[in-house]
């Protein structure tokens, strides 16, 4: 459903009011009462609030416009699905645009709706990359396969966990697959990602070996870090998976540094930092994003807003409606995108990656999503309602992608079923490989703390 936001009377004399500044952006979630826009009447400057909860679909007037009472100034939707056809916002593409923006903050807010795109904004300014012709069936199929592979792996792990067969901790990402897959599909092999305590989806999506991940979870010598990493510390440098980080927020400045390194080396490689909604309140996040912003570092900040940091709902941790809004405080573009839609994720990530490669600096991408499972092993998730979980599950990215392949990309059920079966077989083989691999030798514990450490200086009593 789409709802019109109508300019209310505001106790003014009844003449026109002037739009001063939009306080929301398309794609943003609002609650009833969230201030939407600042308007000037003949008596005062007032904020107009949302009359209901929903998502901002489009803004129909720009700052400086005079609008009459009763005019439709914006549209809201009640579902995020309706937002996937939402006009996308322009990315400021050059330094001069940005400098411009900082002196004319108010004017820029009005340029966000596509209907209000400034005439001379080039295609490269948009969140959909310039060369985004239609997504090919091959690409969508491969993204489908990866999402299924991740889901099957995570589900299989969960079953084994219930049987007491998983030795260590487990942070699962069922429900969030589209983000890992869509973002990594926008990257090259030589780009790098920095992930979190919940890394399995990211590592698989970037091309990490499922066998090596499984073996690492089981603490085996065949694991990607020979058992010295574990579930939260997966690494596969050959495919650009840097050590995943269990300190919330810590990878933000690290990814920034990698990006600065890439630029200093004269390459066009980019770095991605994945983090959760909980990470955005760390000091590391603030310092890292700001440093990237002032240095135009080729890094993409990917926030997976799954609504919860452990048991804490985002509403306890944040006074603003979206995380993407934070971008404004750093002078970089920020967008809220449906993270349950792999195509939307892929396209937005591609735009941000292209922008980074062009040397135009970082982008903050907030993907709304939900983790179906508990925070970590043994968390039944009692802080969430059944209804909430069911609502999010009804928007599952995998069936959505499957439907798209069947309806719009000429794929048949059999092909997709085969993919599912292949993924299931791959997952089971990986776990069998992990369980049957041998354990690392005890001496392994002493290796690799240092690259070089003079043997003569080992003086263990």
């Amino acid at each position, binding site marked *: 459903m789409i709802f019109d936001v109508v300019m209310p009377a505001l106790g003014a004399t009844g003449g026109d009011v002037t739009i001063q500044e939009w306080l929301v952006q398309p794609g943003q979630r609002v609650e009833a009462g969230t201030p939407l826009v600042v308007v000037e009447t003949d008596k005062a400057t007032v904020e107009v609030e949302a009359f209901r909860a929903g998502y901002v679909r489009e803004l129909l007037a720009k700052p400086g416009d005079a609008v009459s009472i009763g005019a439709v100034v914006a549209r809201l939707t009640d579902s995020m699905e309706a937002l996937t056809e939402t006009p996308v916002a322009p990315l400021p593409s050059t330094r001069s645009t940005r400098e411009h923006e900082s002196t004319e903050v108010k004017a820029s807010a009005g340029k966000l709706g596509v209907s209000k795109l400034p005439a001379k904004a080039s295609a490269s300014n948009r969140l959909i990359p310039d060369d985004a012709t239609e997504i090919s069936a091959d690409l969508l199929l491969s993204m489908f396969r990866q999402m299924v592979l991740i889901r099957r792996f995570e589900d299989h792990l969960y079953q084994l966990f219930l049987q007491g067969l998983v030795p260590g901790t487990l942070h699962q990402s069922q429900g969030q697959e589209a983000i890992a897959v869509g973002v990594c599909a926008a990257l090259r092999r030589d780009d790098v990602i920095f992930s979190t305590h919940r890394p399995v989806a990211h590592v698989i999506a970037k091309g990490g070996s499922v066998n090596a991940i499984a073996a690492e979870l089981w603490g085996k010598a065949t694991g990607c*870090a020979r058992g010295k990493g574990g579930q939260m510390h997966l*690494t596969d440098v050959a495919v650009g998976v840097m050590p995943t980080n269990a300190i919330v927020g*810590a990878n933000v400045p690290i990814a920034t540094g990698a990006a600065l390194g890439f630029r200093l080396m004269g390459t066009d490689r980019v770095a991605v930092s994945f983090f959760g909604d909980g990470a955005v309140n760390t000091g590391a996040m603030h310092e890292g994003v700001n440093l990237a912003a002032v240095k135009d570092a080729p890094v993409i900040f990917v926030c997976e807003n799954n609504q919860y940091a452990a048991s804490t709902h985002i509403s306890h941790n944040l006074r603003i409606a979206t995380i993407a809004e934070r971008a404004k405080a750093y002078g970089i573009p920020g967008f809220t995108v449906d993270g349950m839609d792999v195509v939307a994720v892929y396209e937005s990530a591609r735009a941000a990656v292209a922008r980074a490669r062009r040397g135009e600096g970082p982008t903050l991408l907030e993907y709304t999503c939900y983790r179906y499972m508990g925070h970590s092993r043994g968390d039944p998730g009692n802080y969430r309602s059944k209804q909430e979980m069911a609502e999010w599950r009804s928007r599952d990215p995998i069936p959505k992608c499957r439907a798209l392949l069947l309806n719009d990309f000429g794929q048949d059920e059999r092909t997709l079923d085969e993919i599912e079966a292949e993924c299931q077989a791959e997952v089971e083989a990986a776990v069998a490989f992990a369980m049957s691999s041998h354990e690392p030798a005890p001496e392994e514990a002493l290796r690799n703390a*240092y690259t070089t450490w003079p043997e003569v200086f080992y003086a263990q009593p």
Partner: protein
Amino acid sequence: MPSREMTMAEALRDAMRLAMREDPRVFLLGEDIGIPGGFGGGFTVTLGLSEEFGHERVMDTPISEIAIVGAAVGAAMVGMRPIAEMQYGDFVFCAMDQVVNQAAKMRYMSNGQVSVPMVLRLPVGATRRGAQHAQSTEAYFMHTPGLKVVCPSNPYDAKGLLLAAIWDDDPVVFLEHKLLYGGKGGRKEKTSLDPVALVPEEAYTLPLGSLAIRREGTDITVLANMLMVHRAMQAAAELAQAGISAEVIDVRCLAPLDWDMLIASVRKTNRVLIVEEDNLTGGWGAEVAARLGELAFDHLDAPIRRIAAPDVPVPTAPALENAYLPHAERITEVVREMVGR
């Protein structure tokens, strides 16, 4: 090879300049390090480098210690050789996660798939600025597996060890004592010692982990680092007048630490005194004393003793700071007690 008299600040600058000329992977980041008309970092060490290498390679950052160290970690992991500077060593506590959980653990957690070849420069030492601009922090890092810790006492060592730290593939915490820099004009410290040394103009390295015998002796081994080396040397000269022969070893690398050299000295002198500016409890001397107790007990004729700062924060007033820091007189006194002469 041609040499030139240099202060410690000049020697450190020279090391960075030579490394940057030689290898494009080397770059600097920190606060106020390259601003034209600025200070060249807190203590002039990077002065003039942005003019030669530009602002991309002498990267001024916001006041963001987490980001400075974090960015160095990230850049190092993808193959750069960053040198990060804290304006004062005390500020590293803002970034402890990045040092201890990130820089130090990346190599291990990834089973050697990545290494973190970065240098973190920390100006340390009490200089009448008060508790938050004064602490000697080496023990924290010596305690952390994955880090190497260097703490030179003179310009020659500073240059050779900094170059070694830059070329080393592991993260190195590099402590520089503020009273040893040799800053000039307005940047000169009131109580500074400012050693000057003849330093080769070309690049050279000293092995990380190496110690240096500053003065040979037979009656007692005095172990000290940074400013305390100079105080120990002063004491040793006085003790010589009284016929006591003290061996002074400059513990210029705390990790790795050349235990063999320490044990060899203990075999000769049979007595050990440790002098350190950091706090007594859990200071580097505690580890050295414990380890020598285990490794060289048979060669010890007396309990190992330590002179360290008391277990309070660094005070500010000259009279208090003076009372806080170990002095040559105290060293002389304790050595005489230990030697019994």
